[in-house]
């Protein structure tokens, strides 16, 4: 279902929602990030996309799973840290990041339902913002078979058509959120639909397709595990974690116990992001490391995204947002690698 909201009424909408935590993209120095809303605000026209992906709303970098504290009488109190019931509303998720959320759902909600993830997922409304122009040079959602108007993983999608947004409800959760104030929304006219179609067409045209045939890449990966290509592609890699930490789909984590005090005992178990590009990621306690060099680590990243995940879930674990390629210190471009793989003989 689609309705229309005027751009000018957007601050009013935020005001009506102010009992929830509202997150809006805001500029922090040179880059965008999601910040809590300060009240009457509107979506910045200049907004491109956030540098850090919105996965932090459902999979924070550091998340306490539970905490054990020792009481005065020697009894232990276990705090399960799952009390959060307040609703978070995130505005301005780009469709590629929405697709990434649907990937995370596949990981965390499929065969095993992760209670921490699912609680956060249920208590967050993701409101997307379609791209009328590609936010970055390296954007390429079309390569991954998505579009700048994709609705996957989102609850609501806003489509900017100049002075107003077309609001598309995708889930019931999204529909319920705005149902309380119908006077802010108007009916969609045929003229709106026409201008939307025009914008859609142009936007799709503006996004370059970086890999000609991705299915070819996936096929080739089966036969090139031992290829020299991995050495050459990863030669300039410096083993940092920018690509995976900025990636909206990467979801590897580590669980640690951290002691805050010995007496009285105060320990917490935390889940933190982990990173397959660090040498220690696969280090065994025997001292053996099955992925000892950067070529095997880079290969792992590509294989996980375009071969293993594709085989189990039928989708590539990449949304084409381009963050890894934009911010790689050594300028390694994932799309170029994929193209080279596709052309591999």
């Amino acid at each position: 279902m689609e309705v229309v909201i005027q751009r000018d009424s957007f601050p009013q909408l935020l005001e009506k929602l102010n009992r929830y935590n509202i997150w809006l993209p805001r500029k922090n120095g040179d880059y965008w990030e999601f910040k809590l809303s300060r009240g009457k605000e509107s979506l910045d026209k200049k907004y491109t996309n956030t540098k850090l992906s919105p996965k932090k709303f459902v999979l924070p970098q550091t998340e306490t799973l539970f905490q054990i504290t020792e009481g005065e009488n020697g009894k232990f109190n276990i705090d399960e840290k799952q009390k959060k019931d307040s609703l978070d509303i995130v505005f301005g998720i780009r469709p590629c990041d929405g697709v990434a959320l649907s990937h995370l759902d596949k990981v965390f909600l499929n065969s095993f339902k992760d209670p921490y993830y699912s609680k956060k997922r249920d208590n967050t409304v993701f409101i997307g913002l379609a791209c009328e122009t590609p936010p970055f040079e390296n954007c390429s959602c079309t390569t991954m078979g998505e579009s700048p108007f994709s609705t996957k993983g989102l609850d609501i999608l806003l489509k900017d058509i100049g002075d107003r947004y077309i609001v598309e409800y995708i889930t019931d959760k999204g529909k319920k959120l705005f149902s309380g104030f119908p006077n802010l929304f108007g009916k969609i006219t045929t003229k709106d639909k026409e201008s939307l179609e025009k914008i859609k067409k142009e936007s799709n045209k503006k996004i370059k397709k970086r890999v000609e045939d991705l299915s070819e890449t996936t096929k080739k990966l089966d036969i090139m595990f031992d290829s020299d290509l991995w050495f050459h592609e990863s030669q300039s890699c410096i083993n940092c974690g920018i690509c995976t930490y900025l990636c909206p789909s990467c979801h590897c984590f580590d669980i640690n116990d951290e002691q805050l005090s010995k007496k009285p005992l105060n320990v917490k178990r935390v889940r933190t992001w982990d990173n397959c590009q660090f040498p220690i990621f696969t280090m065994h306690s025997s001292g053996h490391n099955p992925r000892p060099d950067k070529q095997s680590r880079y290969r792992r990243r590509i294989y996980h995204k375009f071969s293993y995940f594709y085989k189990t879930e039928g989708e590539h674990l990449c949304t084409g947002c381009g963050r890894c390629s934009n911010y790689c210190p050594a300028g390694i471009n994932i799309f170029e690698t994929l193209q080279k793989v596709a052309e591999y003989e």
Partner: protein
Amino acid sequence: MVHIEDIKKEAKRLLKEKKIKYLIGYKRGTNGLTALPTFIKEPEDTDELIWEASCIQNLSRYLVEEKKEQLKNKAENTLPVGIIAKACDTRSIAVLLQEKFLERKDIYIIGVSCEYGGVIDQKKIKKKFRGKKPEKVIFDKTNNLLIGTKFGNIKVPAEEILAERCIECKSTFPLLCDDVFGENVKRKISEHFNSIKEIEELPAESRWEFWHGHLEKCIRCFACRSVCPMCFCTECVVDPIELAVTNESTAREKAEKVKWIERSTTATDNIIFQLVRTLHLAGRCIDCGECERVCPVDIPIRLLNKKMEKTALEKFGYESGFDINMPSLISNFKDEDPQDFIR
């Protein structure tokens, strides 16, 4: 003037005559203006080499990686590795030689003088040339840079787009080189420690707010550590304990490893990580500015290192990267070192 054709010719000769194993240089970037590192093995591939103000990276990091690989495989190095190095890059090689991590015979340095310029700052370029898609940067003798774009060349004063460290550069001429391209010119755009002056003059509370505000953003991708040529430890204080474990380690040793900071990204632990990193680089950092360039959350890491550089110079008269026979800063002392802070 540095002519890229001369460098290419020399590179070709070295590779043809099998004087070097391979050459680490710069090639045209595919994503924006910044040049990319390239590793050239065949003489005919030298055509892709470029030299201009977009050659930002400090390639000596890859010498460290090469050395680590060698140590791991216990392989004998037969031929030296060639590297194209700017003045600051050669200083970082000098520190690595001073600390005996690298051996002089293992490297072949093709030094290139920055002359009147230096390298660009990606962020400044992005701000200034949004939407204009700059394609190349050319030096000019009069402290101006020419930026080539689709709409023709645009002239910009150097300090508007040069990286901060190049504006404060001590010497634009490389040292320790086997080959040198470009002239040795004296140029000074700004005082050496201009960038930290502003922070130093703030009251203590504001300084704390500044650094706390920046460091709490840290996502621990460790790019600053990974990109630094001086960070070559096999064990880092911030890594989980397993890294120091070898085949010979006992269970007791594993269990008793000290955990200096936790995995949770708390502001305190981020600050401690950065402080330790800075202290480890005191008297070693040669201000190549790579740590700050790669930081995905724009923490001004360089300003921390700069403070240590200033302290080393003012209090101990020590400058890193100029003399490979000098003992390093903290493995040495003088009787007259300041001690007025000690009671």
